[in-house]
C-alpha cells in the first residue's frame, strides 16, 4: 500500500510476566476499515491502545499520520488529536452536558474560542443525530445515545483515524443498531477506522479487512469474505465456527 496512515511494527507488550502482544505488525491505509476479531485475552484491545499510546508498548514502533507516537520528543497531546478513540464504557464526563463533553478538548487542546467550539460541537452532534440533546447530561441519555455522543466527542477534533474498542459490547441489543449506523456513515465519509468488536454482521458488510488475533499475535488477515467463508488457518476456522454457532 502507499504510505499507510497507521504503521505499527514489531509491537510487544508485557504486563509483568504476561506477554500480551508478541511482535504484532499492523499497517492501515487511508479510508480503510479494519476489523479486529479474536477470543478475549488475544491482545486486541491492547493493540488498539498502543496505537494512541494509552498503553506503552514494551518494544516496537508506532507511526500514525507520519508522527512517531513512541518518540519522547513527540507532543503526545497534540498527536492524540489526530486519533479519535471510542471506548466500550463510553467514559463520558458525567458532570458536563453532551455539548460540554464534545467541546472540552476543542477549547483546551485545539484552543478554539467558546463560540467556535460550540459551533463545531453542535455540528459533530448533528452528525451522530443528537443535535437536540446537546444540553442533556450523560445521566439523561440512553446507552446508545451516550456512545454516539462519545463518537461525536472524538469526531469533533477531526481525527485522521478512529479507534473503536468494543463500542457496542456494553449496549443493550436494541441500542446497538443506532451506533452501528453512525459508524457506517463515518465510513462512508471516508474515515479510516480500526474496530475491535464482535459485531460480525457489521464486519461482513462494512469492513475492508478482517484481522484475526489469538494469543497476542495476528494469525490471519484478509477480506471479510475470505476470513468468514474460507479461512486458511485452523485456529481461525475454530473461532469463526464458535462465533457462528451463536
Amino acid at each position, binding site marked *: 500500500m502507499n504510505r499507510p496512515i497507521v504503521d505499527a511494527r514489531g509491537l510487544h507488550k508485557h504486563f509483568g510476566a504476561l506477554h500480551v502482544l508478541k511482535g504484532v505488525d499492523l499497517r492501515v491505509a487511508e479510508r480503510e476499515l479494519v476489523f479486529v476479531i479474536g477470543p478475549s485475552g488475544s491482545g486486541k484491545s491492547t493493540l488498539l491502545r498502543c496505537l*494512541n499510546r*494509552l498503553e506503552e508498548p514494551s518494544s516496537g514502533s508506532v507511526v500514525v499520520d507520519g508522527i512517531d507516537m513512541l518518540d519522547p520528543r513527540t507532543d503526545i*497531546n*497534540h*498527536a*492524540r*488529536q489526530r*486519533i*479519535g*478513540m471510542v*471506548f466500550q*464504557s463510553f*467514559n*463520558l*464526563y*458525567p*458532570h458536563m452536558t453532551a455539548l460540554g463533553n464534545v467541546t*472540552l*478538548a476543542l477549547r*483546551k*487542546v*485545539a484552543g478554539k474560542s467558546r463560540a467556535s467550539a460550540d459551533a463545531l460541537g453542535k455540528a459533530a452532534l448533528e452528525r451522530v443525530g443528537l443535535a437536540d440533546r446537546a444540553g442533556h447530561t450523560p445521566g439523561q441519555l440512553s446507552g446508545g445515545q451516550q456512545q454516539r455522543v*462519545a463518537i461525536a*466527542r*472524538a469526531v469533533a*477534533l477531526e481525527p485522521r483515524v478512529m479507534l473503536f474498542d468494543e463500542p457496542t459490547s456494553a449496549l443493550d441489543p436494541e441500542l446497538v443498531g443506532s451506533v452501528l449506523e453512525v459508524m457506517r456513515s463515518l465510513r462512508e465519509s471516508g474515515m479510516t477506522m480500526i474496530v475491535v468488536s464482535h459485531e460480525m454482521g457489521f464486519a461482513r458488510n462494512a469492513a475492508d479487512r478482517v484481522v484475526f488475533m489469538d494469543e497476542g499475535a495476528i494469525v490471519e488477515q484478509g477480506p471479510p469474505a475470505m476470513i468468514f467463508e474460507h479461512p486458511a488457518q485452523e485456529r481461525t476456522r475454530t473461532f469463526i465456527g464458535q462465533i457462528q454457532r451463536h
Partner: protein
Amino acid sequence: MIQTFFNLEIIAASWPIVLAGLRNTVLLSLLVVPLGLVGGLILALLASVKYPVVRWPLMAWVDFFRAFPPLVLLILLFAGLPFAGLELGGFVCVAVAFFLNTGAYYGEILRAGIDSVPAGQVEAARSTGLSRLQAMAYVVLPQAVRNVLPDLLSNTLEVVKLTSLGSVVAVPELLYQARQAQSITYNPTPIVVAAIVYFLMLWPVVRLLSRLENRALAGRY
C-alpha cells in the same frame, strides 16, 4: 441560675469584646480553611502520582499530622520555636499548625475523592489530547470534589471549631475574648454567650451535613 449564666448586665457589658472575638474567629476561619484546602490539594495531587516511592512518604506525612494533636503542634511552634530564636506570633503559629494539620485531613479526603473517579475518565480525556494536568483540572477534580463533598464540609466544620485553640496562644478569637470577659467579671455568662454564638454559627452546617449524609445513604439502597 439565670443571674449566674445569663446575666443581662454582664452580657451587655461584655458584648463588644465578644463581638470582636467573633469577627476574629470568622477572619481566622476564612484564612485557615483555604490554606488547609490548598495544602490538601497539593498532597492529593502528589499522591496521584503512581510511583510508590512518592506515595509511601506522603502517607507517612499525612498519618504523622493526623496523629499529632493540633494543640501540641501549636504549643510546639508557639513556646518551642522561641528557643531557636524564632518568635512567631500566636496568629502565625495557628496558621502554620493548621496548614500542616488540616492540610493532612483535607489531603486524605481529596485523595479518596480522586481515587473514586473511574480510570476510564482519564483515558477518555487523554485520548482527546488533554494533558495530564488538564485532565485532572477539568475532568477528575470536579468529579472528585462532588464525590466527597460531605466529607469536605464536615472537615471544614471541624476546622472552624479548631480556631478556638487560638485562645490558648492569645489569639483574640471568640473563646479567648469570652474567657477574658469571664475572668474580669468572675461570671461564666460570657462563656455561655460564646457557646451560643458558636452554636448559632455552626448548627446550620451541622443540619445541612446531616441531610447530605442521609441523602447519600438513601442513594446506596
